[in-house]
């Protein structure tokens, strides 16, 4: 009897999530570090474990377009890409959201050119934040698997009908092996019913046309309808998280997860694998020096958890760590956290930190330094520098 495999890479976890979600059409284009996701899916199909069609498209731009065509035609679709591939898709990301096609895409986050880099960086996914896609950022491979399954239930919910991006950092998750519990197909089938496209269908007796030209009289209303769907996603994400816990036994905490925040005065806010490292730093600081520090992990960047953040307005100071950067402005996560508190009476001082670009390692010690700096800010009440470039070689000028 073969021993049952217990550990998987992030890419295998993504492929397992897609398989368990019984995806029907997969269209992708190879790019490091994503390629093994599709290799795994191809094997599942070849071994009869998954009844689906895989299309090896001629480009990422084509891959996402194939998914849109397939999703409109009633098939549950999956794709995966990263870095240059994701930004090549940009035209069609807006398209997929506007067409309300509930496609789920794994994004194995990787830095953008120039310079050339194969390593982890959120610039690819973060730079797509205005395309209308729901965006999840995962901390570990288990969350990747679970979130892909949940993403289908969220995206296909009638009140939402928006595509979802599930981000897992290149190499740090995609090629990292760790324990992953693989739910049973039966349980996932009960959790996630088959996809049925109700608004567009191919019926010669009742021919429908999708995406006709809209003039200034109705375009804005269409955009508002789409925003309402994105806002609905907040409740649906929480509901689906609870349902997943009831059925499969794990809850990654809807839009955000507060760790040791009950009595925290100072906290670090971040996404992805850095949140895992920050968890350890918080625990160690509390144990070693009893400092009231905590972690706010942002799991869902779109829709942005504004209301959740407002609950923390009584905190003294926050450090927001971005693994991406908006030139001439600051870390995108930091900018959004700041704006969440803008109109609250009380609000924490907020320190921006840019770290881990291009795969640079971020360890527990780094987080502890950031937290110490944040505690100092909470005491002095002054933020000398809006954004710190962590471990920058050479002096940071402004």
């Amino acid at each position, binding site marked *: 009897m073969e021993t049952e495999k217990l550990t998987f890479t992030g890419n295998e976890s993504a492929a397992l999530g897609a398989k368990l979600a019984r995806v029907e059409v997969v269209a992708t284009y190879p790019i490091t570090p994503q390629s093994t996701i599709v290799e795994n899916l191809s094997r599942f199909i070849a071994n009869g474990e998954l009844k689906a069609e895989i299309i090896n498209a001629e480009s990422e731009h084509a891959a996402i377009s194939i998914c849109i065509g397939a999703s*409109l035609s009633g098939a549950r679709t999956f794709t995966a890409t990263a870095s240059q591939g994701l930004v090549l898709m940009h035209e069609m990301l807006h398209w997929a959201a*506007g*067409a*309300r*096609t509930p496609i789920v895409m794994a994004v194995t986050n990787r830095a953008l050119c120039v310079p050339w880099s194969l390593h982890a960086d959120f610039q690819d996914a973060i730079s797509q934040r205005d395309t209308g896609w729901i965006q999840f950022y995962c901390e570990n491979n288990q969350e990747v698997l679970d979130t892909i399954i949940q993403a289908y239930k969220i995206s296909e919910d009638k009140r939402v*009908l928006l595509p979802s991006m599930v981000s897992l950092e290149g190499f740090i998750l995609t090629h990292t092996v760790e324990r992953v519990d693989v739910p049973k197909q039966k349980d996932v089938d009960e959790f996630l019913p088959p996809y049925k496209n109700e*608004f*567009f269908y191919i019926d010669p007796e*009742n*021919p*429908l*046309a*999708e*995406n*006709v030209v*809209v003039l200034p009289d*109705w375009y804005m*209303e*269409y955009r*508002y*309808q789409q925003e*309402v769907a994105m806002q609905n996603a907040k409740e649906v994400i929480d509901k689906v998280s609870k349902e997943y816990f009831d059925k499969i036994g794990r809850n990654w905490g809807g839009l955000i997860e507060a760790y040791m925040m009950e009595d925290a005065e100072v906290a670090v806010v971040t996404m992805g694998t850095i949140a895992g490292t920050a968890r350890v730093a918080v625990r160690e600081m509390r144990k070693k020096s009893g400092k009231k520090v905590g972690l706010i992990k942002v799991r869902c960047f779109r829709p942005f958890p504004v209301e959740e953040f407002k609950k923390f307005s009584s905190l003294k100071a926050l450090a927001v760590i971005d693994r991406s950067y908006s030139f001439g402005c600051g870390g995108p996560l930091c900018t959004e956290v700041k704006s969440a508190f803008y109109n609250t009476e009380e609000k924490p001082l907020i320190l921006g930190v840019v770290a881990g670009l291009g795969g640079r390692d971020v360890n527990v010690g780094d987080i502890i330094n950031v937290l110490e700096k944040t505690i100092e800010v909470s005491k002095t009440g002054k933020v000398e520098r809006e954004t710190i470039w962590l471990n920058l070689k050479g002096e940071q000028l402004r």
Partner: protein
Amino acid sequence: MVKIPTVTSWQDLPVGCVVPGGTMIINKTGAWKVFRPVVDHKKCTLCMLCWIYCPDSSVVLAEGKIEFDYDHCKGCGICANECPAKAIRMELEV
């Protein structure tokens, strides 16, 4: 008949901008024309070339005779130009 969604607010907009097909038939593009085709039934041999060459499906065969749907015909004049029997002429629309 042609069912066209009536919309008054964002709530009743069909999701994904999906509408019933073929509803442009209510467009009276006939108002575009300056000249209109007129057929001389005596000369017409019912070869149907005018019908197959019409960009706007505005040639109608009714009770064995060629007629024109002036609500939709744009007056391009292809039918008159192509008619082998020279049975169609274009007249200035008054």
